[in-house]
């Protein structure tokens, strides 16, 4: 009968039978939801990403992000947003206006900046240096990935997972290899959620008990630092301004990320006079950006794009990038300890990774397990926060050289 036939045609049953990849993707979406909801792995991002995966893989729903060659018209021209919405639906409208333009990651950085307190870093400034060594995973995995057949741009996007910073990874990938956005974002946020597993693993393989017992507060008493901060508020206001200008002169392509991070931080530190702005940056703007970032990044993972050998390589490579970055931070501390009397606990190198503030909490827990009086959280936060700056700078270098 005609009606039933038309009814059947309306459904997506035929599509799913024709491409069981859809079912696999739905299962992956459900698994990511499980990780986000039950395991509480970075739920703020993983839940929207997972739901985006599901929406994108409901055939006929018109909610999957289409490859950018369907948007390009040649000669540098593209469809406009009305045409994208009309031809490809609202998810592509959102993706191409908010993500492909590179808009949301700097906006999220503004919110993160307005939630970040540079105080712990300013009180232990020297430790900030270890945020540099913990970018090692980015560049070593980049080299490995090229060896394995990735293009330089793809390899850089894979490597940046080792920066352990979601928006930075997403921004870099948008600029260099947008077709890999889904798996790279998933890997970045998943491994950030797995920091309580990865840091202890690497630390156990690289550090001796004696090193892990180094007590930072005792070291501070023995070798007190000379600088006292008399006016923390003034320092905190001046710091993002000066840092922003100087860093930007050295790595101009990091301005969209670092500039917005420091702007967010500045309005936070100014305080009550611009509290309305800080409230918006950390509230409605950040939350709205998170929803749409998650859904659209998830929606890039259509069966056609995700079920690829590169996805597996990204998952493996992302893990290595994390591990090598932690290793780099630990080694830098060990080298510093060779030359200084004032010893540093290598856990403070491990937190140079970033993944603020979870890495610091994990490191603190390890330290307390070895010596229940060795509270190192405040020290860890210094390299931890500087690790955010470090990976944004690394991203700037990659974009500047490869774009």
């Amino acid at each position, binding site marked *: 009968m005609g009606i039933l036939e038309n009814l059947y045609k309306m459904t997506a049953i035929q599509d799913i039978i024709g491409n069981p990849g859809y079912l696999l993707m739905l299962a992956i979406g459900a698994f990511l939801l499980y990780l986000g909801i039950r395991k509480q792995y970075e739920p703020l991002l993983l839940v929207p990403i997972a739901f985006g995966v599901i929406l994108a893989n409901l055939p006929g729903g018109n909610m999957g992000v289409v490859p950018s060659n369907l948007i390009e018209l040649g000669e540098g021209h593209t469809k406009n947003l009305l045409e994208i919405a009309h031809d490809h639906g609202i998810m592509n409208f959102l993706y191409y206006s908010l993500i492909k333009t590179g808009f949301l990651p700097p906006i999220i950085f503004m919110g993160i900046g307005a939630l970040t307190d540079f105080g712990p870093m300013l009180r232990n400034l020297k430790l900030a*240096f270890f945020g540099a*060594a913990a970018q090692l995973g980015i560049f070593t995995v980049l080299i490995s990935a*090229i060896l394995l057949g990735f293009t330089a741009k793809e390899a850089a996007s894979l490597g940046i997972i080792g920066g352990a910073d979601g928006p930075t990874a997403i921004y870099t990938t948008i600029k260099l290899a947008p077709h890999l956005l889904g798996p790279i974002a998933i890997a970045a946020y998943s491994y950030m959620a797995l920091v309580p597993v990865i840091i202890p693993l690497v630390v156990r393989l690289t550090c001796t008990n004696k090193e892990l017992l180094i007590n930072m507060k005792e070291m501070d008493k023995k070798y007190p630092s000379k600088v006292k901060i008399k006016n923390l508020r003034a*320092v905190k206001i001046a710091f993002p301004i000066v840092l922003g200008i100087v*860093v930007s002169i050295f790595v101009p392509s990091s301005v969209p990320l670092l500039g917005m991070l420091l702007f967010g931080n500045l309005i936070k530190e100014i*305080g009550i006079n611009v509290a309305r702005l800080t409230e918006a940056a950390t509230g409605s703007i950040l939350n709205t950006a998170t929803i749409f970032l998650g859904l659209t990044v998830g929606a890039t993972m259509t069966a056609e794009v995700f079920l690829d050998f590169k996805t597996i390589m990204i998952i493996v490579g992302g893990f290595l990038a994390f591990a090598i970055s932690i290793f780099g931070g630990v080694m830098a501390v060990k080298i510093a300890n060779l030359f200084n009397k004032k010893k540093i606990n290598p856990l403070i190198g491990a937190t140079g990774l970033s993944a603020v503030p979870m890495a610091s909490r994990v490191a603190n827990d390890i330290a307390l397990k070895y010596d229940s009086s060795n509270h190192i959280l405040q020290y860890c936060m210094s390299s931890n926060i500087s690790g955010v700056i470090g990976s944004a700078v690394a991203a700037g270098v*990659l974009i500047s050289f490869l774009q």
Partner: protein
Amino acid sequence: MNQMGIAFELLGVGMITVFVILALVVILGNGIIMFVNKFIGEEPKVQAVDSSSPVVTINPQKLAAIVSAVSNVTKGAGRVTNVEKQ
């Protein structure tokens, strides 16, 4: 330059840049601290209202009471939403 050449150059340029920048963070940070110590000096003691550092402590049950009061007055239609995570 071939891909591997680029890759190794990026390792060099990237790690040097990151080290230079974080060295600048340390240097600039210390510079600002010293500048502020010398030219701006101590923070005035009596500050503007700083809602993030309340001084009085109170029984946490009172919060539940407040939430409850809101709920009562608005007959279930209202709720305190803004005890937000920061």
